[in-house]
């Protein structure tokens, strides 16, 4: 059985890094629709992939969050990207693979993946 003992060590490692992280807020927000419709369509693994990629690439000013029903359930899983000073981008029918590409192309390199957006799907 894994116990909480290991968590103490993780805390010690993280203590020093914390200060840097707290200051770097209010950047890009990636929002995943997590109502019944999103969950049933596969939003949970999409959210997991987004969080893992952001952590792995150490994207410090990017926040992955959840919301309820976005209102167009037939397009779930839906991911919205909010960047300061830019128009919101809505990605639809998301999968973990597509999520990885959005982090790479859009979040890191600034290129919106047009083919995955709601505009392309409609």
């Amino acid at each position: 059985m894994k116990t909480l003992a290991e968590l103490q060590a993780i805390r010690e490692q993280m203590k020093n890094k914390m200060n840097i992280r707290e200051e770097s807020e209010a950047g890009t927000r990636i929002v995943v629709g997590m109502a019944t419709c999103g969950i049933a369509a596969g939003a949970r693994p999409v959210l997991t992939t987004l969080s893992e990629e952001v952590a792995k690439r150490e994207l410090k000013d990017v926040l992955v969050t959840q919301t309820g029903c976005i209102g167009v359930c037939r397009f779930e899983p839906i991911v919205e990207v909010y960047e300061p000073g830019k128009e919101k981008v809505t990605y639809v029918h998301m999968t973990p693979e597509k999520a990885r590409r959005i982090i790479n192309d859009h979040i890191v390199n600034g290129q919106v993946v047009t083919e995955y957006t709601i505009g392309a799907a409609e």
Partner: protein
Amino acid sequence: MKELSLNVLDIVLNSVKAKASLVTIEILEREMLEITIADNGCGMAPEFLARVIDPFTTTRTTRKVGLGIPLFKLAAEMAGGTFRIESEEGVGTTVCATFDPRNIDCPPLGDMAGTMVTLISGYPETDFLYRRAVGEAEFSVDTRQLREIMGEIPLSSFEVTNFVREMIEENERELTRGGNE
């Protein structure tokens, strides 16, 4: 829903929306698989509680159907189990569903680590107690304990959620392996 852990996630999000400060999730497996989700949120008035298993009842404003509770109830009943919901305004709500694991229509429990990580990372201010038992063996994860250890570090930090994921996955493997021996 492909697996029960997704139903659990969906139902617990109702508790979060009801402003619960603590949600207890118990998954006990003996003769039957029993899933109980209990919160200390705002609860429901008797009139609303009576309608809540109806798909055409919802609190969402984007449209007029709410399928979370009906889907969970249907999954339990299809798997030879039962469904029960109790609620009191100002006290909280308890949802309990049982499943017959031998029933062909019983969905797999699935990725409970994924469900708990989704909850903790999305709602780091809410406390979650996850208790899992198979036969006599059990383990639990309590965010109140995690909070005590981590101090000022938010539970939504990737390092913390990753630890929770590994802990649940490893302990789950041990529980189910023990059951097969």
